[in-house]
């Protein structure tokens, strides 16, 4: 809870939220009637979904011949869309698992929605292999089970079958991870609900109580699931890349280096998270929880992964030339200068050029720019898969079978339908569950809330009452201390940094803590600790580090009891503080 946070780190929860405010803000969207924007979006999504279902029914009824696939182009929009959706599904687990392992606090604002997005994207993706096999009614032949056909088994040596296992596992694990995180939050919704609604959430929350042992196991479970989901998410797209790499099609060997494919997946996933979160935070009024700091962090991930993808594109061009293999060389020449040149340059522009805009901090933090670029990246990553799959197949080894593939209305309709499905599910999710993880945001409040860290830290900045309150605390100190406090306050007020001016409003006299003199008080101020509350929540090791950094003269001081003392001072328990200080010797327990 009270781990030290660098003073330059931006707060992740704005608006001086209390725990109750967090509950109120995050649960209330599920409690009020949906607004006009939600209804419009939902009707639109359902319409798209209905059209998609119609096209799927059409495909199954009349057969794959309704698509424009031909003798050489056996994979077209179907597998392009499949890989695109799977890629989008990578960001959720990345945010919730890898960022959990790296202890990135900003994940708490976006992990719930990103995980939901993962699950919905995988559902959309799974539709395509299910129907492109043609006989969708025997699609369960994918799975090995003791059957009456021999029994005859699927080919476990085939990357296509690995894919079946990878995606089913990925879907199951993501779902379990997501739901386990949701259970405590459903309990929060339950405890505010009445009547039938309460019954529903009672069922969904599995009888959660908030017991200490349950929380301990919950954290342990989350950590292990994160630990195993991390290699899992990497394996999924690695196996998708094997689908192509193990074939004998020259242009498909571009995927032989799976990390490139995985980076691309993360890249597109983050773009979709951004697209969704920017709309969600606006519609549900979550600007205090999904802050500009969150958006900036995600833009940095986009910049890194986009650049990895760009380097990979250039490397494959070089390798095609350097290999001296004419088929490979032709495949790449054909991509850039063949009939699909527009898809290739669309891909290059959207994926390589457009994210470079995020080198500029101002644009990284601009919502309009981020939203626009996120859409561009979504389109670009779709082009990437299309370029790999279709342009290669349209120029086969035998020039007499060259063709130009463009989709039929049925193929377009199915793609539109999956987009409709995705948004239908997402919109329903925003009605049923808290979009931001309530318990997890509460658990980072003390270290990342804007009243505890950043320029607005300390009580309520700026107004006169607080200035007086700040002076009251300096009232009873002896003359020497008072001057030093005044000097410090003046210094702070004249400093041009915005941070320090605002902080001066509620400065406490830290010298009231036994073991802290004027010098150490200044050192603590230098570490952005101005109040008893901040000192109480500071980590002992960080305090020690501050003292060590200040020079050898301060290393003998022991800050162990400071937070205990400061907590009493913060709560105004002066008598108890006196009692405690009587027991202490120079700030040390004796």
């Amino acid at each position, binding site marked *: *809870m009270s781990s030290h946070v660098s003073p330059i780190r931006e707060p992740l929860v704005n608006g001086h939220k209390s*725990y*109750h405010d967090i*509950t109120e803000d995050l649960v209330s969207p599920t409690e009020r009637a949906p607004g006009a924007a939600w209804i419009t979006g939902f009707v639109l999504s359902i319409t798209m979904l209905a059209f998609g279902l119609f096209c799927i029914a059409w495909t199954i009824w009349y057969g794959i011949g309704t698509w424009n696939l031909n003798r050489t182009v056996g994979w077209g929009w179907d597998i392009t869309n499949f890989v695109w959706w799977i890629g989008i599904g990578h960001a959720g687990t990345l945010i919730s698992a890898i960022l959990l392992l790296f202890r990135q606090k900003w994940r708490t604002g976006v992990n719930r929605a990103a995980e939901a997005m993962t699950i919905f994207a995988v559902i959309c993706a799974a539709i395509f292999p299910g129907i492109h096999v043609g006989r969708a009614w025997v699609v369960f032949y994918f799975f*090995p089970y003791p059957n009456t056909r021999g*029994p*005859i*088994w699927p*080919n*476990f*040596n*085939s990357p296509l*079958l*690995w894919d079946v*296992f*990878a995606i*089913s*596992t990925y879907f*199951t*694990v993501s779902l*379990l*991870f997501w739901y*386990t995180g949701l*259970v*405590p939050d459903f309990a*929060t919704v*339950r*405890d*505010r609900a009445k009547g039938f609604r309460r019954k529903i959430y*009672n*069922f969904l929350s*599995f*009888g*959660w*109580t*908030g*017991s*200490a*042992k*349950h*929380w*301990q*196991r*919950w954290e*342990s*479970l989350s950590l*292990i*699931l994160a630990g*195993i*989901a991390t*290699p*899992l998410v990497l*394996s999924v797209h690695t196996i998708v890349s*094997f689908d192509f790499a193990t074939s004998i099609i020259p242009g498909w060997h571009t995927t032989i280096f799976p990390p490139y494919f995985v980076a691309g997946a993360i890249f597109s996933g983050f773009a979709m998270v951004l697209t969704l979160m920017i709309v969600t935070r606006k519609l549900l009024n979550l600007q205090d929880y999904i802050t500009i700091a969150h958006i900036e962090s995600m833009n940095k991930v986009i910049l890194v992964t986009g650049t990895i993808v760009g380097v990979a594109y250039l490397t494959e061009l070089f390798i095609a030339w350097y290999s001296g293999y004419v088929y490979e060389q032709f495949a790449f020449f054909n991509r850039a200068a063949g009939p699909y040149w527009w898809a290739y340059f669309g891909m290059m522009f959207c994926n390589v050029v457009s994210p470079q805009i995020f080198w500029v901090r101002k644009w990284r933090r601009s919502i309009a720019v981020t939203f626009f670029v996120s859409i561009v990246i979504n389109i670009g990553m779709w082009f990437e898969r299309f370029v790999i799959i279709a342009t290669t197949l349209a120029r086969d080894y035998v020039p007499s079978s060259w063709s130009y593939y463009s989709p039929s209305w049925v193929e377009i309709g199915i793609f539109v339908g999956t987009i409709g499905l995705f948004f239908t599910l997402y919109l329903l999710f925003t009605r049923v569950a808290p979009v931001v993880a309530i*318990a*997890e945001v509460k*658990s980072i409040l003390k270290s990342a809330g804007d009243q505890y860290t950043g320029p607005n830290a300390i009580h309520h900045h700026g107004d006169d009452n607080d200035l007086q309150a700040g002076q009251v605390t300096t009232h009873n100190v002896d003359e020497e201390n008072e001057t030093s406090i005044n000097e410090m306050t003046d210094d702070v007020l004249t400093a041009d940094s915005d941070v320090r001016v605002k902080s001066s409003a509620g400065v406490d006299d830290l010298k009231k803590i036994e073991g802290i003199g004027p010098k150490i008080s200044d050192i603590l101020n230098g570490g952005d600790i101005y109040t008893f509350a901040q000192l*109480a929540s500071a980590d002992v090791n960080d305090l020690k580090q501050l003292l060590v950094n200040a020079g050898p003269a301060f290393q003998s001081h022991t800050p162990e009891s400071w937070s205990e003392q400061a*907590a009493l001072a913060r*709560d105004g328990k002066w008598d108890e503080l006196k009692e405690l200080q009587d027991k202490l010797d120079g700030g040390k327990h004796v």
Partner: protein
Amino acid sequence: MSQSKDIIYGLWNDEEDLLRAVKVAVGDHLEIMDVYTPFPIHGLDPLLGLSESRLHIAGFIYGSLGTLTAFLGMSWIFTKDWPIIFGGKPHWAVPSFIPITFELTVLFAAIGMVVTFYLINGLGPGVVNPTIDLRITDDKFCIAFDKSEVDVGQVESFLKNNGASEIHSKTI
């Protein structure tokens, strides 16, 4: 469920105050029934003497089970049950069994651990546990005592003196 219990509990508004109070209660040898919080509190487990969760051991066992199922299953199918030659590879083509073995390891570990988690916690679909206070999942931090296990007077004075904002008795 088990028969009803008479409990007395105090509510705190801040997790750091709660931690201090728990420290005092443990020091006074008061038998705490349970502590309920809206989010996980770090540092609480050692105070309450909760041993580290062994869920990871269970996870390892489930995972190993998945590894064995996948690898032995595929080996049996392709060498004994129905051997087929694919692309001139040997029947027992170990390297190409690796991806599926890995996936099933993860799948078994995840499902096993999650099911175990709900079973040992006594949670699951349709389970209704008694609610001590509706605000525990919102912003209150609760220490509860079973009246049959503690001296009620001593508990009351403990709650009063250690910053509890509210004190209640209840039968659950």
